[in-house]
């Protein structure tokens, strides 16, 4: 998988990528083509580059260099097509020669500015600049200069002279033709000489793209105070002070604060329960985001992060499911479960994230499905996270509960607007079998129709009465 594909799949990840301030189309391409990395070495190298650039940003002197490099990067165009053509036997035209010269000059400028950065590898294009700048004025302009061929200078001065004498265009036609022929000869010759530069130009494009990408990643790291994840082949996923940048941005805009949470996943299913609106889905998405960011070589939104590497992240999150192919939401969900089971059976290293499994069917069978899936995940020692509203999950797993509404956490009455203040989004270990019953309370708070809710409560009391009765009978 490359980053471009991941953007379609994970909205939160796309949000982060969209916030990157890339300077050039070359940098954007480099980023979009980045592979999913599952080698510790490669990732640590990438993180080290980001760390070094962040450190440069701390010092005013080196920060000025960074800014200078950005200014140069902004002038870089994507000349892949032209670079490709330098490998062929075709004759390059003035526009292409201009592009190459413009690019080579920028590469030389940037190379000079970053010569102290050990991780940047840019080829030396000084000689190439010389080829395209025979008059040595180092301006990013181009035409077939007089200096390329003594004959050219001669014909041109003749044209100039005779047109000043008032010769008509027809009279000069012959000279123009000669001039054109010499120009073409020069272009052919230049094209042949440039062929030797193809590999280095290619390398320069990649190098420039990489510089742009790392600078953008580092900038975001500093802006959002992201942290470098400790990557490992095995072990637990440990996240402290985890936050979701997109949700945080929305809350901040409303003058609210995002409560960062801690979570630890081991090779056993973690079942998360909690009231509605307690942030279970956001938590799941945050974990997913951290895994994606880590494996595409980004720092992550947490205070501390230990991230075991996986080959794939398998998710079932309701709002991202494709329900257009004629399947009911339940059927679609079950097929996703099947894919997850398949991948695990093939011994792939995966992270499994499932939001409210089997919520679209009856609670009795739903609970059994959750139990079955959790059982499967735990017995295969898969790192997994499953959220649910069902009580009675008895399969082997580690249980967590989002603390949820805490009375007196905030003054006043709880409303939709201030619910954030009453909620404690942190997790606590939980070995109970029952789940929080706060759905109706939250519905009240949302201002749902009174008549409806009173009817609902009547039914609830009736049910509770029945279950008390049963208990007494027993």
């Amino acid at each position: 998988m490359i980053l471009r594909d991941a953007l379609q799949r994970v909205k939160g990840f796309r949000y982060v990528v969209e916030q990157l301030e890339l300077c050039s189309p070359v940098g954007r391409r480099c980023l979009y083509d980045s592979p999913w990395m599952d080698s510790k070495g490669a990732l640590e190298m990438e993180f080290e580059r980001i760390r070094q650039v962040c450190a440069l940003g701390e010092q005013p002197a080196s920060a000025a260099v960074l800014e200078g490099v950005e200014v140069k990067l902004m002038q870089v165009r994507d000349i892949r097509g032209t670079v490709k053509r330098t490998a062929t036997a075709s004759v390059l035209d003035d526009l292409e020669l201009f592009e190459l010269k413009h690019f080579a000059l920028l590469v030389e400028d940037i190379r000079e500015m970053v010569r102290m950065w050990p991780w940047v590898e840019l080829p030396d294009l000084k000689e190439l600049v010389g080829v395209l700048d025979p008059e040595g004025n180092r301006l990013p302009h181009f035409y077939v200069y007089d200096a390329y061929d003594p004959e050219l200078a001669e014909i041109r001065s003749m044209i100039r002279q005779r047109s000043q004498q008032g010769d008509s265009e027809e009279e000069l036609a012959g000279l123009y033709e000669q001039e054109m022929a010499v120009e073409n000869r020069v272009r052919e010759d230049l094209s042949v000489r440039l062929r030797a530069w193809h590999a280095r130009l290619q390398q320069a494009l990649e190098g420039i793209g990489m510089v742009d990408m790392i600078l953008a990643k580092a900038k975001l790291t500093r802006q959002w105070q992201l942290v470098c994840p400790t990557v490992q082949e095995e072990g637990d996923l440990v996240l402290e002070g985890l936050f979701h940048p997109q949700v945080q941005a929305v809350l901040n805009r409303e003058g609210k604060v995002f409560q960062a949470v801690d979570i630890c996943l081991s090779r056993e299913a973690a079942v998360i329960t909690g009231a509605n609106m307690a942030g279970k889905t956001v938590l799941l998405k945050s974990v997913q985001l951290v895994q994606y960011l880590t494996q595409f070589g980004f720092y992550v939104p947490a205070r501390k992060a230990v991230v075991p590497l996986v080959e794939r992240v398998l998710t079932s999150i309701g709002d991202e499911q494709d329900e257009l192919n004629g399947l009911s939401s339940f059927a679609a969900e079950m097929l996703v479960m099947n894919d997850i089971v398949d991948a695990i059976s093939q011994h792939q290293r995966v992270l499994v994230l499932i939001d409210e499994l089997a919520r679209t069917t009856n609670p009795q069978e739903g609970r059994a499905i959750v139990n079955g899936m959790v059982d499967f995940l735990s017995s295969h020692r898969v790192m997994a996270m499953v959220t649910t509203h069902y009580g009675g999950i008895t399969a082997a797993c580690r249980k967590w509960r989002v603390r949820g509404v805490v009375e007196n956490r905030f003054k006043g009455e709880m409303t939709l607007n201030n619910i954030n203040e009453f909620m404690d989004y942190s997790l606590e270990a939980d070995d109970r079998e029952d789940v929080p019953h706060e759905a109706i309370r939250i519905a009240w708070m949302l201002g749902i129709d009174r008549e409806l809710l009173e009817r609902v409560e009547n039914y609830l009391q009736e049910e509770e009465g029945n279950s008390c009765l049963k208990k007494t009978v027993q």
Partner: protein
Amino acid sequence: MRLIERISDFRSLSIVGLEKNTGKTECLNYILRQARDSADRWALTSVGIDGENRDQVCQTPKPEITVPEGMVFVTSEKHYREKRVVSEILEISSERTALGRLVVARAVTEGKVLLSGPSDTTALKRLLGRLQEMGIRTTLVDGALSRLSLASPAVTEAMILATGAAVSGNVPELVRRTRYVCDLIELEEVEHALQAKLDTIDRGVWAIDEKGECMDLQLPSVFMLDKQGVDLLRYGPRLFVAGAVSDRLFQFLQVQKEKVELIVRDFTRVFAQPASYYAFVRKGGRVRVLHRSRLLAVTINPLAPSGLLLDSGYLQEAMEKSLSVPVLDVRREKDI
């Protein structure tokens, strides 16, 4: 003062023809000859495709554009490859047109070039700004007066209108039609605050109340006036039409009790016959624009593609009587 000196007081000038074959290109070449001595301070471009060797409609020979040595010109990739001038590429803009990216180049020797330019108004504005940054004092724009063109020449500070026998062989009629377009070009600009507000609106019909607030009248097009049965003037007598204004609208507004002020983007948006426009004005109506170019001169071409040749002196005199700007026949003028 010579025309060329007046032009160089402005940062941009467009030359527009009232019809095809009214001598627009000759007028441009005339100015270019005048600008030869200070060529490096000038730039040259076009809106849309122009500079074909032969006129696409009438197949009459069309003078090509001769760029003086040292002048900057902007054209599309396609036309750049076809140029017959030695020129140095200064920049390739990322702006795309139907004929490829725009190339900014400086003529190393005098020579001929086919001009093409930005395809919409905002791109033209950006280009004019960029050329100014590059140290160009005045940019000449080979303009087009066509409802097909998305790029309006009215974004240039000044304008020259080319007219001639191709419009009409009847001198009084030719003068009337030229006078009408001159009147439109010279429509007054709205106040600055309102201009900024309306500039961002690209569709619909809007009312502007006394406080300068804009209200969308929810009218998809002025062509649907009668069907709506709504009172267009319920917020007051000031209207802004983002798109084109036709005879129908003028006729409709003319019969209203109130004296209407109609605001349009620029004069190229008025597609009404002179009769309906003047009738509206006579009833006390007023038309204003967001962008106005200063009209510097009108040039005349007494020769029509049909072969008809009018008397240049008589035509010039008749024009001068009716217009308040200098009138010149660029083929005869040696020095203006």
